[in-house]
């Protein structure tokens, strides 16, 4: 019997819940290595041990973020802070990370301290752009968005749900539509960590067009990651949206 696309999608979403549940079982801080660097992972924080996209974005985002002493980088939903640390360790860029979840803010601060980049990084608590001042401008804005395209699923029993699911694409909408207000100039770029396997590209395209972006391109793509999801291999993409 052939599986319908809906059934395949449901299986992937259930796989994501499974990963989040496994992640939630970690009740103590632990060390985890990403791209040869060691990071602390706190309980209840989106963990690179279970979600393989962190390593992919930690490798790709620094290549596509505007780096340098006078550049400013913003990461939304920073989690453990691994991507942000990778950007700063690649180029000494002033970086700001935000996260809605208090444990993630603590976790990112720990990793900033662990990698001695406190002079470059600033971690703030709040949803999407809330902790960002109206006049703060950035050269690159990135978010490994919750691309789980599943509006309704059995009661999300954990704090990690907002990191993987975004019912109605509400936060994705705020992220894309609010980006321009924080762009330093028309050459700033918006990087979107996404997975077409789990999400829906047309949603991104629609929101990018609505926000006035002229270009939306895939600038990096992982192969199929076998353990990206317990149900099916998953592919991750890094999208770049530009005004010019």
């Amino acid at each position, binding site marked *: 019997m052939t599986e319908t696309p809906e059934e395949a999608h449901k299986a992937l979403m259930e796989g994501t819940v499974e990963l989040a549940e496994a992640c939630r079982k970690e009740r*103590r*801080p*632990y*060390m985890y290595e990403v791209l040869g660097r060691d990071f*602390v992972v*706190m309980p209840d924080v989106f963990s690179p041990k279970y979600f393989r996209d962190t390593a992919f974005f930690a490798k790709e985002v620094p290549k596509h973020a505007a780096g340098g002493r006078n550049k400013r980088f913003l990461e939304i939903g920073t989690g453990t802070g691994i991507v942000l640390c990778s950007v700063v360790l690649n180029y000494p860029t002033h970086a700001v990370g935000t996260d809605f979840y208090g444990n993630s803010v*603590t976790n990112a601060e*720990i990793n900033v*301290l*662990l990698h001695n980049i406190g002079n470059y990084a600033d971690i703030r608590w709040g949803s999407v752009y809330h902790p960002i001042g109206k006049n703060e401008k950035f050269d690159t804005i990135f978010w490994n968005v919750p691309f789980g395209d599943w509006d309704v699923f059995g009661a999300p029993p954990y704090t990690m749900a907002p990191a993987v699911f975004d019912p109605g694409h509400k936060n994705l909408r705020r992220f894309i539509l609010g980006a321009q207000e924080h762009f330093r100039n028309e050459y700033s770029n918006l990087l979107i960590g996404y997975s077409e396997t789990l999400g829906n590209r047309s949603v991104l395209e629609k929101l990018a067009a609505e926000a006035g972006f002229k270009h939306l391109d895939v600038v990096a793509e992982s192969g199929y990651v076998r353990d990206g999801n317990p149900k099916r291999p998953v592919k991750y993409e890094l999208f770049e949206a530009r005004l010019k």
Partner: protein
Amino acid sequence: MTNDGNIDAILAGTEELIEETRSEKKPYVHDVNGMPIVVLPGVFSPRYFKGTAFYAKHVPERVGSQFPFLEIGTGTGAVVCAVKKKYGPATGKLVATDINREAARNALVNGIIYDARGFLDVRIGHVFCPIRYHERFKRIFWNAPFFDEWHGTNDMLARSVFDRDYHNLELFVKGAATHLAEDGVLQIGFSSNLGKQEILERFLEEAGFTAPEMVAESGYSMEKHGRNLKYGLFEARLK
């Protein structure tokens, strides 16, 4: 010296422990009395030196809600974090110092994990150097190096264990006489069988302290080559 065993074997074992600590090139998490503690490379490690777990258990009990609390040579910050964990939001001001820059960073990392920000001030420097002249503490603690000989290379790890002629212990006791509040208690982590207690007593006497009283003692430590080692927690007050 009250020596329950062959001192040469114990010194050799200690050097070996320092060497093993030095061989750790990556940060790791070690469990200290049920508390996960991040340990950075080059920092005095509770994985190898069991005294940390003993003091992390007994020092918080003896603090008795008396703050500010100062820890000299905090290392990973496990003891100061245990104090924070025990007293929670009722914790008062905590200050921790270490001469090792990596240790100071390590203590800050653990301080964040144990929600000690806003309570904990970590400073870099030798014994009381980072403490301002007017600062007074109700409790001052140091897990002091109790070997008065010098072995191994002159690095931060060796300084955590060896203290030639007890020079740093003397500085600690004299400095404590200045920085301890009138009704404060000086807490000294010292080996109850391998440390030269008569010298500690002399330093305390000269600095105007009462004779040290041992308030807690470990069983024989199960450290590698350290089966003849006992840890003690000594307390003294200003006369």
